[in-house]
C-alpha cells in the first residue's frame, strides 16, 4: 500500500463557506490537501474554525464557493447523489429521531443505496450488515433499541452503519465527543484498524489532539485566518504547527508519552540511533507503520543527525544510504 499514490480525496484551491444572494461568507480559503487510500486523516482545529463546514463540503452536502473537491480523481460536481452514497459514508453528531429503531435496523439503513424501492435485504446486503456488526463488535446488541445504548455503543453502531454502506471513504465528525477515555481509544483504534485492514480512507474531525498523534497517518490542521497545514503528526510537531495551534506545548509532549498510548502491532525491525530530541517522535512514526526499533545492529538502520537548520534521518537499507529531511520522506524511503 505504501509508496502508492492512490488519492481518495483531493482538495484543490478549495474555498468553503456560505452564500446568500450575492454575499459570500468565506470560512476557509485556498485549501490544498490529499487523502490517500487506506489512510486515516485527522482534521483538527479549534471550535468554529470550519471543520464541520469542510466535512459538509467534501461530503457534497453544501457546494464549495470556489476551487474543487476531487473524489477518486473525479470532481464532486460531476458525481450524482447515489454514486456519492456508494463512495462516501458519514458518521455525524446529528440526533437520530427514532429511539425505537433497533441496532440492526439502523445498520441495515446503510444498505439504502443498494436495495430496491421497498428496502428489502438480499443475501449480499445481509452479509454486509453482519460483517459491519461483527467488525465493530456490536452483534450482541443487534436486537437492542438504540435508545437503550450507551454513548460508546451508539457510536460503534453508527460506524457499523457507515461500514454497511460499503463506501471507500468514511467521513466522521467528532466520533469521540461525549465518550470516556477508554471508549475514545476503542473507537479510534477501531477506525485505525479499519483504515489499515480494509483499505478504507477515513477523514475524521476531532479534538483529540494527543490521541490523533498516535493513530493519524496525516493531520490536516486548520487555523482561523491562516492557511491549512498538512503532514504527519510528527512533522507537524517538529515544524511547530502544533505549538501554533495550542499554546500549551508542554501538555502535548507529555501526553505523547502518556499511559494511554495505543499499542501498535509491529512486525518489522530496524535499528534507531542519533539525536535524542526527535528520537521518540521518529520511534512513534515507525511504530505506527509497524516497525519496532532496536539499538543493536540490524539490516535496516536509521541514524538521526542535526545540522544548524534541521534534522536529517539517514536511512540505510539494502546497503544503500539515503537522507530524509522529514519523517514522511524517511517512511517513504523505508517502504520503497
Amino acid at each position, binding site marked *: 500500500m505504501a509508496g502508492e499514490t492512490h488519492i481518495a480525496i483531493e482538495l484543490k484551491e478549495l474555498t468553503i463557506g456560505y452564500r446568500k444572494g450575492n454575499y459570500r461568507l468565506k470560512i476557509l480559503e485556498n485549501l490544498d490537501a490529499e487523502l490517500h487510500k487506506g489512510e486515516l486523516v485527522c482534521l483538527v482545529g479549534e471550535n468554529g474554525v470550519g471543520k464541520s463546514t469542510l466535512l459538509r463540503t467534501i461530503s457534497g*452536502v453544501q457546494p464549495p464557493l470556489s476551487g474543487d473537491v476531487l473524489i477518486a480523481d473525479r470532481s464532486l460536481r460531476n458525481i450524482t447523489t447515489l454514486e456519492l*452514497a456508494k463512495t462516501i459514508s458519514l458518521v455525524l453528531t446529528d440526533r437520530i429521531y427514532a429511539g425505537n429503531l433497533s441496532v440492526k435496523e439502523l445498520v441495515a439503513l446503510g444498505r439504502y443505496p443498494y436495495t430496491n424501492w421497498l428496502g428489502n435485504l438480499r443475501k449480499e446486503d445481509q452479509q454486509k450488515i453482519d460483517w459491519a456488526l461483527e467488525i465493530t463488535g456490536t452483534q450482541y446488541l443487534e436486537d437492542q433499541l438504540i435508545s437503550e445504548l450507551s454513548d460508546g455503543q451508539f457510536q460503534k453502531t453508527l460506524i457499523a452503519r457507515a461500514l454497511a454502506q460499503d463506501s471507500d471513504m468514511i467521513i466522521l465528525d467528532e466520533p469521540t465527543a461525549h465518550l470516556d477515555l477508554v471508549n475514545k481509544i476503542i473507537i479510534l483504534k477501531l477506525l485505525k484498524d479499519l483504515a489499515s485492514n480494509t483499505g478504507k480512507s477515513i477523514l475524521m474531525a476531532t479534538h483529540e489532539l494527543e490521541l490523533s498523534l498516535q493513530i493519524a497517518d496525516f493531520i490536516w490542521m486548520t487555523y482561523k485566518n491562516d492557511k491549512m497545514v498538512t503532514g504527519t503528526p510528527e512533522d507537524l510537531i517538529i515544524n511547530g504547527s502544533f505549538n501554533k495551534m495550542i499554546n500549551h506545548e508542554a501538555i502535548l509532549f507529555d501526553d505523547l508519552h502518556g499511559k494511554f498510548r495505543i499499542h501498535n502491532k509491529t512486525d518489522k525491525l530496524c535499528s534507531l540511533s542519533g539525536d535524542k530530541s526527535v528520537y521518540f517522535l521518529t520511534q512513534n512514526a515507525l511504530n505506527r507503520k509497524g516497525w519496532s526499533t532496536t539499538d543493536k545492529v540490524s539490516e535496516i538502520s536509521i541514524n538521526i543527525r542535526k545540522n544548524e537548520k534541521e534534522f536529517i534521518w539517514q536511512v540505510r537499507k539494502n546497503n544503500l544510504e539515503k537522507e530524509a529531511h522529514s519523517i514522511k520522506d524517511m517512511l517513504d524511503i523505508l517502504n520503497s
Partner: protein
Amino acid sequence: MSNRLSGIILLLLGLLVILTTMNISLGSVYIPFQKIFATLIGQSIENEGWQNIILQFRLPKAITAILVGSGLGISGLLMQTLFRNPLAGPFVLGISSGASLGVALAILAGMTFGFGLTQMGIGGSWILTISASLGAILVLLVVVLVSLKVQDSMSLLIIGLMFGSATSAIVTVLQFFSKAESIQAYLVWTFGSLGGVTWQELQVFIPIVLITLFGSFLLSKKLNALLLGDNYARSMGLNINNTRLLIIIATALLAGTITAFCGPIAFVGIAIPHITRLIFNTSNHKILFPMVVLCGAILMLICDIIAQIPGREYTLPINAVTSVFGAPLVIWLVVRRKNFSKTFAK
C-alpha cells in the same frame, strides 16, 4: 416478519371485522343481528326501513370511519417523520384551516348573499365538500411553493402553522360579521361527522384514500432514511426535496379529502402514530405503516360506536369523542412507558 408480529396482525384484523360488525349493528334504531347479517350478504329483508338504515346509512358510515382513521393516522405519521416532531399531525401544514376557510366562505358568505346551504339538501353537502377541497388545495399549493423555496423542514413547519393561524383569523372575521344561524351551521361542520358521506361521495372518497395510502406505503424506505435526519438521508442517496414534496402531497390528499367529506377531525392523526409506536415498539415504517392503518381504523370505529350512544336518538360530535376517549389512552400509554421521550429520539 416475526411470528409475534403476524399474530398481532391477525388479531387486529379479527378485531377490525368484529368492530365493523358492531359498528353497523349498534345505533339509535334496534335491528336484530340476523337481519343485519342477511342484509350485508345481499339478501333482502322484509323491513325496508331497516334495509335502508343499514345500506344507506350505517354501512357507508362504517366504511368512512375506517378510511378516516387509517388516512388520518398515516398522514400524521408522515408529518411526524418529515418534521421529526412528535407534536406534528395531519393539519400542521394548514390543510384543515384551508378547508375551514373554504367552508366558512361557503356557509357564512353564502348565507349573507342569500343562498342558504341548509335549504339546498344533498346539493348543499356537495358544495361543502367542494369548497373544503378548494380551500385545502389552495393552502396546499402555497405550502408546496414555499417548500420548494425553503430548504429545511423546521422552517416549513413554522410557516405551515402561520398559514393555519392566518386562515383561522379570516374565519373568525367572517364569523364576526355573520348571523347566528350560519355560525351554528359552520360550527356543526367543525364538529366533524362520519355519517354524512353518501355512496355517491364514497365513489370519490374510497379511491383517493386507498390510492394515496398505497402510494405513501411506497415511501416507507425513504421515510426510514429520513429518521436519521436530512444529512444522513442525503448521504445515503435520498433526494430530500423530491421526497419532501411527495410526503406533502400524500398528506394533503389524505387530510384534505377527509376534511372535505367529514370536517376537521382532530386528535386521531397525532395520536394514532404514537399509540402504534408505543404498542409495537418500533420506528420502522415498513411495520408501522400497516399497523397505523389497522389501529387507525379500529380506533375510529370504536369512537364512532361511542358517539352513537346505543339506544339514544342523538349522536355526539365525533371530534369530542376522539379526544375524550383518545387522550386518556395516550396518557396511559405514555405514563406506562417511563422513557417515552426516548422512543422518539436518540
